[in-house]
């Protein structure tokens, strides 16, 4: 990746609650895409106040970022301070507990208290300002709390409209299905998001993640071969008894967001997504609608699984990057 000049790849913003292992895999996938020059991971924001989980997210970010260097600022994790901290899975605590023979932690993190994290809306604002117009995408893998709050932050809606090409949400069920936990977790926020978000939205429903299970066997093969100590591989092992293949709604959303023209997925016609009182998503087709949802193409599932493994297990590429001055065009979502 060039340090100065050259075409700038899209800025990737990821908001999640890290409630499932899929969200961690999505982070790895985005960093793998960064290594390929398909995006630059800008910031990660969390929608629940859980310092242990934020600490693990920080450790993952440091794992991929590498040591500090000239012009290589490592952003903090954005963390919501309202709401409940939720469950702290062993997926987060077990890797952080690992020590080297000298007693030092295998994975460094610097989150000790809330001051080591940032207000999500402020962080989003600060890092969106470093993106070219239409030069960023946002992936949402959890409840809509942070993004709805961002819409109420002074000046941020206009900034989002200018900088964010599209938002890809892992959530809901399409064309219809049962209510999903990440929507129910903050129903008012989800409704606000679908009603007021100023850019196109593409949703990856639960059916997408279920149809594209992550090849769990790769954790002990490709991941282990790439890096002996890999925080996401450790988390995957600790999350559930191995072997298992996790659903991949957030990974699918991230893959589509960074490579919308790669033909991995089909897209619904344009329309409008709304949420009923029970938290179920409904889709109404309309010609000038700003919402679409992903449709799994059975012919692409093997290709997607291969991309998941290749990208998520990729060896970290230390980033030494400053934004160039010239503009960069982001691929258009397929219609």
């Amino acid at each position, binding site marked *: 990746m060039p340090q*100065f000049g050259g075409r700038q790849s899209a800025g990737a913003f990821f908001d999640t609650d890290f409630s499932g292992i899929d969200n961690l895999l999505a982070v790895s996938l985005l960093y793998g895409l960064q290594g390929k020059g398909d995006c630059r991971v800008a910031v990660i924001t969390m929608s629940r106040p859980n310092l242990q989980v934020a600490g693990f997210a920080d450790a993952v970010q440091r794992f991929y970022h590498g040591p*500090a*260097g*000239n*012009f*290589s*600022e490592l*952003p*903090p994790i954005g963390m919501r301070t309202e709401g409940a901290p939720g469950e702290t899975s062993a997926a987060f605590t077990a890797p952080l507990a690992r020590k080297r023979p000298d007693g030092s932690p295998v994975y460094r993190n610097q989150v000790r208290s*809330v*001051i*080591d*994290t*940032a*207000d999500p809306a*402020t*962080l989003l*604002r*600060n890092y969106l*300002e*470093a*993106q*070219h117009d239409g030069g960023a995408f946002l992936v949402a893998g959890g409840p809509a709390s942070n993004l709805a709050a961002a819409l109420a*932050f*002074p000046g941020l809606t206009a900034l989002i409209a200018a900088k964010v090409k599209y938002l890809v949400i892992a959530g809901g069920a399409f064309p219809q299905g049962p209510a999903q936990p990440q929507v129910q977790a903050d129903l008012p926020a989800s409704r606000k998001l679908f009603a007021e978000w100023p850019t196109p939205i593409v949703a990856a429903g639960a059916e997408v993640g279920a149809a594209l299970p992550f090849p769990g066997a790769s954790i002990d093969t490709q991941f282990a071969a790439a890096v002996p100590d890999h925080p996401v591989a450790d988390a995957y092992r600790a999350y559930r008894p191995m072997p298992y293949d996790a659903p991949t709604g957030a990974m699918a959303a991230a893959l589509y967001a960074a490579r919308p023209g790669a033909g991995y997925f089909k897209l619904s016609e344009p329309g409008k997504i709304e949420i009923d009182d029970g938290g179920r998503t409904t889709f109404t087709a309309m010609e000038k609608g700003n919402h679409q949802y992903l449709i799994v193409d059975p012919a692409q599932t093997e290709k997607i699984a291969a991309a998941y493994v290749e990208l998520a297990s990729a060896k970290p590429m230390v980033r030494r990057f*400053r*934004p*160039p*001055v010239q503009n960069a065009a982001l691929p258009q979502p397929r219609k």
Partner: protein
Amino acid sequence: MITRKTLPRRTFLRGLGTAAIGLPFLDAMTPALSASTMPDPPVRMAFFYLPNGMIMDAWNPGYEGRFSELPRTLKALEPFKDDMLQLGNLTHNTGRALLDGAGDHGRCCGSYLTGIQVKKSLVDIRASVSFDQIVASEVGGKTRFPSLELGMDDARQAGDCDSGYSCAYTNNLAWKSQAQPLPPILNPRVLFERLFGSGQPMTPEERRRQSLYRRSILDFVTDDTHKLEGSLGPTDRRKLDEYLTAIRAVELQIQRTENDNRQIDPHMDKPYGVPADFAEHFRLLSSMIAIAFQADLTRIVTFLVTHEGTSRSYRELGIPDGHHPLTHHRYQAELMEKVRRINEYHVQQFAGFIEKMKTAREGDRSLLDNSMIVYGAGLSDGNAHLHDDLPTLILGRGGNYFKTGRRLLVRRETPMCNLFLTMMDRMGVPIERFGDSTGHVEGLNLG
């Protein structure tokens, strides 16, 4: 009820149209038997800006809360640690590259008090009104000078000082409008004459002729001084004497500097009144800040100690290398140690100023108690050019407001402009938003 005549706060000692010396706060300025109705003393605000970041391992203590052992760079402030509040994690996002590429030094200084990202240009200068000038426009009319802008380095206003950023951005802190910076006064003589003269700086020839007939600017106000002394009590007389002695000391030092400079090199490119020695230059300018605050000549000072990207060397410390090149140390221990020593040296000079502020009394408080003296930088790690966790000290309680004696960490990415909002409140100029502020910094006050 009132049994004696009260001396007006804005009394000046005047003489022959050449001198106008403001006075410190005296007991005689308070109405007798009316202490309970006395207005609070005014709050003063100053910024001491240091360039090229700091070595942060020697700046930040490894703890939050009440000060115990101070970190190495701050050791000289040990006598004043109960008067000091160290803030951590404040960020100037507008100093970052965003979409403007290289030029962190030009940007960080330009954005420091303006709170916006300045335009990258050599000719089309675009910043914004700095917050000190917003305050000055509101309260500056209450003092002889709405604000004072001081510096010790290059004051060029044109040319390329950093990767396409005009020198206007690196060589000024205060901005009157988006295209009009307020260049700092570098020459102690110019500042002295501005503070105590009739209002117009003298030409060198006028100064030479005057020096034939007098020894001190105080000689011009002898009559006024004697008259005033006759009406003061013993405490006020002692206070006045100390104050005038401090002015005389500054004046003598300026004269010595001018004589020394003539002998050192008659062709030196600095004006004769500008000391070649860093410590002497700092002491002279900062002494006059203390006097100006004491006499309520101004309530707002910005002091660009040296400018971003400066290659000033510190031979007095045995460091012939330029400051800015040293800060590109690539984490080499030997180079980092030199920067630590420069950082310490700067703080040592600053401590001398704080001592003056602490010693000067104003009613039942010190002048420092009624002030907010910010010592800060626009970069933290100068090697990585980071714009977060900006080194920020506040000395003084801003009029019995700040809870000092501790290190306070705020959430990461908290805008520096949030602190400015709080400071504007303390200066009696409350506004809702400034720059990229998101609210006030919480937890600063005694409450």
